C-alpha cells in the first residue's frame, strides 16, 4: 500500500497536477507519525500509511491551496472534512485531489500503556487489530483496544470525494454503536449534564489545541480572540471555559464530522468529541441531514428551507 501511495504521489507531482501532496511520514517515534508536505519525488518517498496515521490532514487545506492545487491523503472520516470545506467555499474543487487510503482503524495510544514505549520498533495492522514489535518480541492487540473509539463504530465506505482510491475500504463490522457514548450521556439529567461539563471544563487550560486541530475552525479571527469586542476573556475559570467550549460547539453544529482531532489534541483529556457528536445528532433529528456527505448541499445552519422545523408554537 505504501508503494502505491508513493508511486501515485510521485506521479501527481511529476505531472504537475498538484504542487504538494499532504500526507503522513514517520514520526519521531515508531508509534507516531507526522504530517508531510511532499513537493518533490524524493519527498514523496517518505510517505507512509500505517496505524499511527491518526491526524486529519484536511486541517491544512485552506492554507495549502493558496499555493495551488494540492493532493491530500485522507481516511474516509477525514474525507468528510474535505466535503465541508468545499461546501463552505474554503477550498475550490479544482484545487484539491483526495487520495483515499483503505483504513482498518487507527491507533489509540492508550493501547500501548503496558508497552515500554522506548522499546517499540513498529506498529502494523493485523487481521483483527495491530501488532506492536518491540526489542523483546511482538505484542498483538485486538482492535477493541488498539483503535480509537471512532474507529470501532465506523461504518464508512467510499467517501463522496474520492479522486484517487488506493484500494477498497475493509468490510466494516462496527463493534460499538456510534451513538453509544451519546446514549450514556443522554441518560443524565440536565443538572447532571451541567456537572459533567463543569467538571471537565475545570481542567481546560485554554490552549486552543482543540480549535487549532479542527478543520472546521478556520476563522481568521476566532470569537474567543477578539479584543475589540471581548466576548470572552482568557481567564480559565469554569464559567469562561464553559462559554468558550459551548460557543465553539454551537459554531460547529451541523459542521462537525466527528474526526475526534479535538479530543486527541486536548492535553487535559476533555471528552470534546462528545459535544460534537451530540450536536450532530440534534441536527440530524431536526434537519434530517448529516455533515460531510454532500459537497453540493448548502450548509445546514447557513441556509433556510420552508420545511425547517419551527419549535415555536403556532399561537
Amino acid at each position, binding site marked *: 500500500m505504501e508503494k502505491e501511495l508513493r508511486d501515485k504521489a510521485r506521479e501527481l507531482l511529476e505531472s504537475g497536477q498538484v504542487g504538494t501532496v499532504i500526507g503522513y511520514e514517520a*514520526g*519521531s*517515534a515508531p508509534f*507516531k*507519525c*507526522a*504530517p508531510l*508536505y511532499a513537493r518533490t519525488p524524493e519527498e514523496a518517498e517518505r510517505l507512509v500509511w500505517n496505524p499511527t496515521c491518526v*491526524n486529519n490532514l484536511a*486541517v*491544512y487545506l485552506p*492554507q*495549502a491551496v493558496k499555493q495551488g492545487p494540492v493532493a491530500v491523503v485522507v481516511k474516509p472520516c477525514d474525507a468528510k472534512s474535505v466535503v465541508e470545506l468545499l461546501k463552505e467555499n474554503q477550498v475550490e474543487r479544482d484545487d484539491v485531489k483526495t487520495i483515499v487510503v483503505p483504513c482498518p482503524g487507527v491507533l489509540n495510544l*492508550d493501547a500501548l500503556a503496558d508497552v515500554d*514505549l*522506548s522499546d517499540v520498533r513498529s506498529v502494523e495492522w493485523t487481521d483483527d487489530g495491530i501488532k506492536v514489535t518491540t526489542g523483546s518480541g511482538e505484542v498483538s492487540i485486538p482492535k477493541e483496544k488498539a483503535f480509537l473509539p471512532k474507529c470501532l463504530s465506523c461504518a464508512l465506505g467510499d467517501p463522496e470525494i474520492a479522486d484517487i482510491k488506493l484500494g477498497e475500504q475493509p468490510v466494516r463490522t462496527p463493534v460499538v454503536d456510534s451513538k453509544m457514548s451519546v446514549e450514556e450521556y443522554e441518560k443524565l439529567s440536565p443538572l447532571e449534564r451541567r456537572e459533567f461539563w463543569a467538571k471537565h471544563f475545570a*481542567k481546560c*487550560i*485554554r*490552549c*486552543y*489545541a482543540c*480549535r*487549532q*486541530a479542527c478543520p472546521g475552525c478556520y476563522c481568521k479571527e476566532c470569537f474567543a*480572540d477578539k*479584543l475589540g469586542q*471581548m466576548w470572552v*476573556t*482568557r*481567564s*480559565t*475559570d469554569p464559567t469562561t471555559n464553559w462559554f468558550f467550549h459551548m460557543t465553539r460547539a454551537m459554531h460547529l453544529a451541523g459542521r462537525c464530522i466527528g474526526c475526534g*482531532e479535538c479530543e*486527541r*489534541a486536548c*492535553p*487535559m*483529556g476533555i471528552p470534546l468529541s462528545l459535544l460534537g457528536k451530540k450536536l450532530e445528532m440534534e441536527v440530524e433529528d431536526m434537519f434530517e441531514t448529516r455533515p460531510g456527505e454532500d459537497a453540493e448541499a448548502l450548509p445546514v445552519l447557513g441556509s433556510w428551507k420552508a420545511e425547517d422545523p419551527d419549535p415555536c408554537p403556532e399561537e
Partner: protein
Amino acid sequence: MESKVISKQDIAPWLKGLAEKYDVIAPVTEDGVTRFKPVDDPSAIDLGPTPAKSGIREHFTPETETLFDYKLEGLSAEVTPPEGIKKDRLIFGARACDAAALRYVDAVYSNVEPVDTPYFDRREHTAIVGLFCNKPSWTCFCTEVGDFMMNPINMDVYLTDLGEKYYAEALTPKGEELLGSSQFQPATGADKQAVEAHRESVQAKLPKPVDHAKASESYDWDDPIWQKLAEVCLGCGACSFLCPTCHCFDIMECAKGKKGSRFRCWDTCQFDKFTLMGHGHNPRPSRVERTRQRVFHKFKYSPERYGMLGCVGCGRCVAVCPVNIDIRKVIQEIESEDKVSA
C-alpha cells in the same frame, strides 16, 4: 546532611502529620490525566507517570491570577490587592526537571524591578519534596540539557524509590526539618550504595549531555526548517502551556460598571496575537516567525540573557504536540555538522 530512609507505608502518616503546617500538593490521576493538586488524603497520590501532565508550574504561576480588585469612586479608585499565601505548601513528588525549571522562572521574574511579588511569595512559602525518576518516559531528555536529575536544585528533599522504601536526602535546612519526623530512620551504607547504583543505571539509558548553548551561537535565522515547521504546526498553545519554564502572561480586565478586577492569565508566543501591537504591526505575523521564536528563546536567547537554557528536557511538548513536532529533532537538525559554521 545525613541521609535517611522512610518505609513507603509511612509516607501517608508523615504527610498527614505535616497537614497542620502545610497544604500538601501532590500528583493525582483523574480520568487518566495526572496533575498536581491539593490532597487531603495521601492515598489518592499517584506517583506513577513520568512526568505528570502539567507539572508544578501552575502552583507558582497560576493559569489565572487576580492582580487586584478595584472600585471606582468619583476620580479615585479603591484598590484591593489579593491576599498573600496564608499557609505554607508542600509539593510532594515533584520531578527534577520541574524543580529545576523554577530557576529559570526565578531569573526572569526577578530580572527587573519591581520583581514579581506574588510569584516569589509562593516560592518562599512552598517546600518541595522531589522524586528521582525511576522510569523516564520516551520523551525525557533532561540529562541532555542539565545534570539536575543527579544533582537536583530548588528542592528541599530528594526521594529515591528503592522498592519498599524511599531514600531521602535533605538538600536545605527546611528539608532537614522535614526529615526530622519520626517516620525517618538513618540510611545505611548499603542503602547509599543501592541508590547510587540505581541512579547510575537510570542515567545510563538517558541521552548524553549536549552543549546546546554553545551550538545555538550558530543557529540559522533563515534555516528552511522554520518554513517546514510552520506548515505543520497548528499554532495551538499546548507546548507552551505544559512547559515548566514558560512564564508569559497577558493582562486583562473583568469589569462591570464601577467595579472590576484586573487579572493575568497564561499567554503563549505561539498565538498569533501575542506580538500584535496597538498600532497594528505584528513582528511575528506567521508561524514561521513563531515556531522559530520558540526554539530560539529556549536554546539561544535564554543562555545569552540568563546564562542558562530555557529548556529542562521534561519532554512534555513532545508528548503533547498533536502533530509530533519534536524539539529534540529540531535542535538536532539545526545543530547538525554541516550547519555549524567553522
